[in-house]
């Protein structure tokens, strides 16, 4: 009991769509695979390329997801547009009252499952890379977030009793501590080309440790310490900011990251360790004679080359 106009209503969208869709899926998979091999040649689609190996891995995943989203979203968008413009009401003719098409329904259930599985595999691969924390990092830094600032703690001199500032047994007076002041944002100094482990925690409420150009953020939470690694690809200055609402001055909780060469980092840390040994209330200074790439400097309160205050 169908309407008389049924035959003319539909010029066969039904069997065309699945084929087109799977073809597009194949294209997406090929593009995605190629991406992961030669990611740098693909645009970053608004994201930072990533100044650490972890950030770069994330960026490649982003490229894959962006292209997949563009393909699938674009396909659905075109279907919607086509439906809107092609099937405008032109007459009072009764359209065919189609309600089911089993094959088509199976296709548009199974194909998305496959897409999701592919995305999930790449997600896990990237995630394992980003989240990996090798046992022997080249440097360990403890980051304490508080309302409304940051403290970066480095180990003290050998034998000082502060091999790891996060350790409950550390002699806190002998650790190297960098902290900001109201007029100066604190700067975290890290070496390039080596795994740097960050142990992150909060002294009061929840904070978000976020370095946009590293494509990475992590909550600093009271109650537990969370660890992650950065492996900086090149020297430079990068801005960081708290992303998790933490009260009144959340908007002003900035910090900087200064990436220097391994040699410069070692020299700097040894100098500061010796200074702390001599005077526990020493204020650490930035590595001298190092310009880490001023082009990346973008915070107005960035204290390039200036003194860092400490406690």
């Amino acid at each position: 009991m169908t309407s008389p106009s049924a035959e003319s209503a539909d010029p066969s969208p039904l069997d065309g769509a699945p084929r087109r869709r799977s073809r597009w899926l194949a294209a997406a998979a090929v593009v995605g695979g190629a991406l992961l091999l030669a990611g740098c040649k693909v645009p970053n689609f608004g994201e930072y390329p990533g100044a650490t190996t972890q950030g770069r891995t994330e960026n490649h995943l982003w490229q894959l997801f962006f292209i997949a989203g563009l393909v699938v979203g674009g396909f659905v968008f075109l279907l919607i547009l086509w439906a809107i413009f092609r099937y405008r009401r032109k007459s009072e003719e009764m359209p065919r009252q189609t309600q089911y098409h089993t094959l088509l329904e199976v296709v548009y259930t199974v194909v998305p499952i496959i897409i999701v599985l592919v995305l999930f595999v790449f997600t896990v691969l990237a995630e394992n890379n980003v989240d990996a924390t090798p046992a022997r990092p080249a440097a360990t830094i403890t980051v304490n977030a508080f309302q409304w600032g940051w403290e970066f703690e480095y180990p003290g001199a050998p034998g000082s009793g502060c091999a790891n500032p996060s350790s409950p047994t550390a002699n806190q007076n002998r650790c190297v501590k960098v902290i900001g002041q109201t007029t100066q944002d604190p700067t975290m100094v890290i070496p390039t080309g080596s795994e740097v482990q960050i142990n992150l925690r909060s002294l009061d409420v929840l904070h978000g440790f976020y370095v946009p150009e590293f494509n990475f953020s992590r909550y600093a939470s009271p109650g537990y310490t969370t660890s992650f690694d950065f492996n900086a690809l090149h020297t430079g200055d990068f801005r960081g900011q708290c992303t998790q609402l933490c009260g009144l001055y959340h908007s002003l909780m900035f910090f900087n990251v200064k990436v220097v060469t391994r040699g410069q980092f070692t020299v700097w840390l040894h100098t500061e360790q010796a200074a702390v040994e001599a005077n526990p209330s020493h204020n650490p200074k930035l590595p001298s004679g190092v310009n880490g790439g001023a082009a990346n400097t973008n915070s107005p309160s960035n204290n390039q080359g200036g003194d860092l205050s400490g406690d």
Partner: protein
Amino acid sequence: MTDVTDVTDVTDVLAPPAPGHDVELPQTHLPAGTGGGHLDEPHGHGHEDHGPTGILKWLTSTDHKVIGLSYMITSIVLFYFAGIMALFIRLQLTTPHSSLLTFGQYNELFTMHGSLMLYLFAGPFAFGGLANYVVPLQIGAPDMAFPRLNALSYWLYLTGSITMLLGFLVAGGAASFGWVAYAPLSSAASSPGIGGDVWIMALVLTGFSAIFTGVNLVATIFYLRAPGMTMFRMPIFTWNMLVTGILILIAFPVLTGALVMLFCDRHFGTHIFTVTGCHLVNGAPYSGCGSPLLWQNLFWFFGHPEVYILALPFFGIVTEVLPVFSRKPVFGYKGMVFATMAIAALSTGVWAHHMFTTGAVLLPFFSFLSLLIAVPTGIKFFNWIGTMWGGQLVFTTPMLFCIGFLLAFLMGGVTGIMLASPPIDFATHDTYFVVAHFHQVLVGTAVFAGFAGFYYWYPKMFGRMLNDTLGKWHFWLLFVGFWLTFMPQYIVGLKGMPRRVASYPTDLGWQIYNELSTIGAFIIAVSFAIMLWNLWQSWRKPIPAGNNPWDAHTLEWFTTSPPPHHNYTHLPPIRSERPTWDYNHPDALAVPHGVVAEAAAHARKKEPVA
């Protein structure tokens, strides 16, 4: 080929109409055959016959239609309040260091904007307002299962809403810890003052209101369906409200419980969510410590199902509107029902995707389930497109709003898939990328689809039409304003602008995106001013709607507009999910399930369009 029998067999399911004067009902002015049931004598009689009138009616009624309207009016008023707050937020961000608001005021405003929109508008508008009004009508019931409980729900909701707004008047100002109230920022030490307590109490009240409504919806849909209205003949909107009701019963008690615990932390010396007062060694817990992470787990165990409590009703609206204005049945009805159930089931297992950056959740598990939600959501998209495909589309205001929803939700959905991948979430979490994402989803559902439902059912509720030209102005301004507001936020988020900041550095190039966003927000404001004008016009110069102005499908369009006190005097035979359509178009029944081979053969023929 069809199981529809004699369509003239009008079934009486209710007692004959009570004696009393018949209200003169505006009759349809549409061509014959498109009206509602052409009953000989529509014995409509307003609620006036059944109780007090005027203000006393609104205060004492247990009629689901009166309560539904109260809900809708209250929630739309709160929507306007929250919208005005959003305008202040946008003004503040137009320049990097604006002195319009202090940091404290800014924190209060975005907290209340989020709280009003999510707790007091989007949910109550859907499951308190539209569902309350429409669900009993769609299943041929005279009222909700528990009318007095229904009234209690509304009064709890109104009380809670007023309590929430009173926060602005107390010493120390309203709550300012964000709508998620993350511990330990929401503790007494970090957020002293009554504002936080008022906020908690408001949500306990509205939480109970939601739970009672959930009970009512589920009981109504299970027990009060008219003869012939089997589960698989229920309109998709009713289906979605059933699933929403069940999700409410799963999610809201968790929130209410967590809020009570938070209140105990603030006042009774417990430290369930805080580590203050416990023994710490170097910031690490040592003994007797609470867990801030527990709050996040409890909150999001409510919060993610809540996202679907806010989405499913609106999916239901779209699934009602698209078929009517395409003149076709819903494509893949049963697949749609199962997709809804799948979304609901998955939604209880994805809460920790809000917590990827805590470093304390099992990433692959929550990532996989979150990605998987794309599958049933995708099914819905194809169902909606399939419904339009081959139809005769007419672009009335509700239809335009639905198309606005499809495009907004498509963009919000695609970026949602990106955020379901933990490494991408690490890069974008708590930035404006996320702000843009969830606004596209929530404005897509609660605003585009929500007001599609409002324009669609308004004639049924008031017996008069809204002006379609003004409606189209509303839509197009909203559409332009929406994209202009949120697309720049994606970009500025990728550049690293965090959410919930009242100022930002001047030299990062963020200002231009914020300016565009503000312009967009004001265009949206203009669009909603036009809606107010439209409502005013319809009040001053009514255009009679008739019973079934849209030539719609479902049962509610069979009765008068507005419906009589107990909704129906007669019902048409219910032999499919489109009883009113079947009654009006006995020669255009849906191609029955199982005639797949014939449909496929038809599709393969590729006949030219006549």
